[in-house]
C-alpha cells in the first residue's frame, strides 16, 4: 500500500461509516445526534462550495449565506402562497391550468387574531371541506429555489466582474445586508423575524424498501442531505480537476496573466459564481424544508462567519478537507454546549459562550501558522508528499533569485 492510497481508503471508510451510522447508532440522544449530522452536512455543502469560490477561484465573497437564503425563501414563499385547487375560489388571483386552478394566496402578514384569513382559507371555509386543495410539491419549490440561486449568482457574478479582493468582499456583504433588510422589512409577505413556515421534506412520510418513515423521522432527510453532499462534492471535484479548475486557479493567481494566455476570465468567473451559488441555494432549500421554518436571522453575518471559519480552519484550498472539517467542527461546537467546574479555583466555566471564543482564536492561529488549514495539509502529505520537497525547493530558489535581482 503506497502513501497515495491512504486518503482514498480513509475516504471510503468515512463514506461507509456515514452510510451505516444511522442504522447502528441506538443511544438515547439519537434524534439530537442525527440533527447535528444533518446540520453538519448542510454546513459541509456550504463550506466546500465556498472553498471552491474563495479557495480555488480567489473570489472572497461574503454573500454565500445570501444565496442560501434566496434558495430557502424561494421555496418557502412558493409553498406558502401557491396552491392547486380543482375549483375556482373567485376571491384569489388564480389561473386555470388544465382542469385545476393555480391559486395565489394573498399575503396577510402576521395577525394575532384568527379572524383575518387569507383568501384561500376564506374560500375553504365557504366550501366547508367539499373541495380538496393540494399544496404544491416540495421538490418543485426546491428546484425553483436552486434556479433562483443560480439566477442571482449570475447577476452577482456579472456585477462583481470588475471588482477584486476587498471591493468584492464589501460588495457581497452589502448585497447580503440589503437582502436581509428587505426580508425582515416586508412583513406582509415574508413575515419578517417571525419566520416563514415550510412543509417538511416528506410531508406525508415516505416508504422506502417496504419501510414507512414518518415525516418527523430523521432518516430520510439524513440521506437526502448526505447524497446532496456527495453530489456537490462529486461535481466540485470533477470541476476542480478538469480544465475549469485549472482556469479558475489561474484566475486566482493572476487575472490579467490568465486573460493574456487566453483564458476567458469573464465566462469562468460567472460560471464559478453560478455553480457555487446554486449549491448554496440547494443546501438552503433542503435544509429549510428539513427544519421547517426560515427567518432572516439565517442570513446573518454570524452564519457566514461560521462557514468562513470552518473553511479556513479545515483548509480553504481543498474541498474535501473543507467538507470534513465542517462536519467535525459542527459536531465539536455542539458537544461543547456544556459547562464544567475548574477544579482548583472552583469557578464554573460555561462552555456555551467560551466555545466560540476558542473557535475564533483557533481560526486566527490556524491562519497565522498554517495557511492551508489543518486537514488539507494532512491530505496533501499523503497525496503529494513526494512532490512537495521539490516544489518548495524550487520556490526557495526562485525567491532568492528574485531578491538578488
Amino acid at each position: 500500500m503506497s502513501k497515495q492510497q491512504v486518503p482514498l481508503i480513509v475516504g471510503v471508510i468515512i463514506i461507509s461509516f456515514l452510510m451505516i451510522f444511522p442504522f447502528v447508532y441506538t443511544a438515547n440522544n439519537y434524534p439530537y445526534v442525527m440533527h447535528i449530522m444533518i446540520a453538519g452536512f448542510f454546513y459541509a455543502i456550504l463550506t466546500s462550495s465556498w472553498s471552491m469560490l474563495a479557495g480555488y477561484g480567489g473570489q472572497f465573497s461574503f454573500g454565500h449565506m445570501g444565496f442560501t437564503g434566496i434558495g430557502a425563501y424561494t421555496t418557502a414563499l412558493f409553498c406558502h402562497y401557491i396552491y392547486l385547487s380543482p375549483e375556482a375560489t373567485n376571491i384569489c388571483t388564480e389561473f386555470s391550468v388544465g382542469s385545476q386552478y393555480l391559486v395565489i394566496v394573498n399575503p396577510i402578514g402576521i395577525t394575532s387574531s384568527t379572524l383575518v384569513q387569507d383568501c384561500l382559507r376564506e374560500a375553504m371555509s365557504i366550501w366547508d371541506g367539499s373541495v380538496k386543495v393540494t399544496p404544491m410539491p416540495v421538490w418543485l419549490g426546491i428546484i425553483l429555489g436552486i434556479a433562483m440561486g443560480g439566477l442571482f449568482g449570475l447577476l452577482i457574478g456579472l456585477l462583481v466582474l470588475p471588482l477584486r479582493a476587498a471591493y468584492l468582499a464589501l460588495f457581497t456583504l452589502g448585497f447580503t445586508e440589503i437582502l436581509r433588510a428587505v426580508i425582515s422589512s416586508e412583513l406582509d409577505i415574508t413575515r419578517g423575524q417571525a419566520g416563514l413556515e415550510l412543509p417538511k421534506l416528506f410531508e406525508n412520510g415516505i416508504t422506502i424498501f417496504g419501510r414507512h418513515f414518518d415525516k418527523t423521522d430523521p432518516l430520510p432527510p439524513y440521506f437526502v442531505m448526505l447524497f446532496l453532499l456527495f453530489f456537490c462534492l462529486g461535481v466540485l471535484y470533477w470541476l476542480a480537476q478538469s480544465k475549469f479548475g485549472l482556469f479558475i486557479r489561474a484566475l486566482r493567481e493572476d487575472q490579467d496573466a490568465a486573460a493574456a494566455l487566453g483564458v476567458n476570465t469573464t465566462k469562468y468567473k460567472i460560471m464559478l459564481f453560478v455553480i457555487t451559488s446554486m449549491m448554496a441555494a440547494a443546501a438552503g432549500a433542503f435544509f429549510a424544508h428539513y427544519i421547517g421554518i426560515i427567518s432572516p436571522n439565517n442570513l446573518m453575518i454570524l452564519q457566514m462567519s461560521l462557514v468562513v471559519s470552518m473553511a479556513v480552519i479545515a483548509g480553504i484550498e481543498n474541498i474535501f478537507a473543507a467538507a470534513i472539517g465542517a462536519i467535525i467542527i459542527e459536531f465539536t461546537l455542539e458537544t461543547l454546549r456544556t459547562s464544567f467546574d475548574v477544579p482548583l479555583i472552583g469557578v464554573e466555566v460555561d462552555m456555551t459562550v467560551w466555545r466560540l471564543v476558542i473557535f475564533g482564536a483557533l481560526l486566527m492561529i490556524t491562519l497565522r501558522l498554517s495557511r492551508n488549514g489543518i486537514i488539507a495539509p494532512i491530505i496533501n502529505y499523503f497525496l503529494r508528499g513526494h512532490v512537495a520537497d521539490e516544489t518548495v525547493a524550487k520556490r526557495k530558489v526562485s525567491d532568492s533569485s528574485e531578491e538578488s535581482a
Partner: protein
Amino acid sequence: MTFWGVVGAFGTRRAYLKKDMDTSNAGYIGSMIGAATGPVGLIALWLKTPETRKSLLVVPPIAAFALLAISFAFADPSNSCVTNGSFVASQISNGIILGILYGFMALGLTLIYSILGVVSFAHGDFYMIGGMAAYYVTMVWFPGVNPLFGIGFACVSTFILGAVFERIFLTPMYDGRIDRPVEYGILVTFGLAFTLQYFIAATVGSNPVKAKRYFDFPRLHWPSKEDPWLLKTRRGGLELFDTITISNPRFTAAVVCIIVLLMLLYFLHRTWTGKALRAVSLDREAAAITGINPNRMNMLAFALGGMLAALAGALLVQAFSWLPQVGAIPAMRSFVIIVLGGLGSLPGAFVGGIIVGLVESAGTGCIPDPQKAASYIPAYGGIVLLLTLLLRPTGLFGRRFSGGSHGKFG
C-alpha cells in the same frame, strides 16, 4: 428615471469605447445624466462624448438628486418631509451629527486601509471594546470618576490591543510569506472580530449596559430668558431656533470628535510621525528610502485606526445601550462610508460619513411607513455601497493611482 439611468450606465460606456476614449467614468456620468435628463441628454452625450470634466462629474448627480426630491414631493405632498420645515431642519441636523460620528469611525478604517491595504473587519469590535472599556471604568471599577479617564482608558487599551494584534498576526503579510495578503488580512481581522465579540459576550454577558451621561449642560437661555428663540439648553439636551433639538450625549460626542479630528489633522500634517504615515500611504518604497520604517508605520496605523473606532464607541456608550454585538452596524456603515469616500482617502471618509448620515436620516424621516423605514436602515447603506461600487469604484475622492501597499508588500 431608473431605467434611463441603467441605459446610460451601459450605453455611455459603449459610446466612449467606440471613440476609443477613457471609459473609467463613462458609466457614472452616463447613468447620472440618464437619470436626470432621460433620453434627451443621453443622446446628446453619446453624440458629443465630451472629455471627463469636473463639472460633468458634479452637476448631473445634483440634478438627478434634485429631480428625485421634487418628484418625491409631488408624489406625496402631505408627507411631513415636504410640509414641515422644522422637521426637515431637525432631520438634517440629526443627520449631520450622526454623520460626523460615522465619519469619525470610518476615518480609522480608511487610515488602516491607506497604509496596510486591508479592510479591517474587526473595526466594529474595536468600537464595541471602546464603549465597554469606558463603561467599566466610569460605572463599575471607579464610579464617579471623571469620564475623561474612561475615554482615555478606552483609547490606550485599544491602541495596545491593535498594536499587539498587528505585531503578532499581520506581520507575515509584509515579506511575501503569504501568497495573497489582502485575503489573509480580511480573514485574520475577521477572526479577531469573532474572538473579541464572543470574548466580551463570555466575560460581560449579553445584558445591555449603558454609561451615565458624561457631562451636564449648564442652563442657558439666549438671547433672553423669556424668549430663548436662539438657544435654550437643558441638562440633557439643547434646542436651537426653537426647532432643532439635539440630545446632550450626541452633541458632546460630535464636539469631541471634531476636536480629535483637528488634533489628528495636526498630527498628520505637522509632526514627523504623521508626515511619515502620509508618506508611506503615498509611496511605500520612496518612504523607505528616506529613512522611514514602513513596517513600524503599519503598526501605528492599525493601532491608531482601532483607537479612533474605540473613541467613537467610548463617546457613544452614554447614548446607546451597549451589547457585544453592537459593533456590527457601525462597522457596516464604515464600510459604506470608506467606499463612498474612496478607499484610503481621509477627507473622503468624513464627507462620506456626513452624506451617509444625511441619507439615513432622510430615509428614516421621509418614508411614509415608519416601521418599514426603521427596519430598512441597513439597506440604505447597502444601496449606497452597491451603487458606488458599480458606478464609481474609486469613490468620491479616491486616488486613481494610489500608492500605499494595496496588498503588494515587499
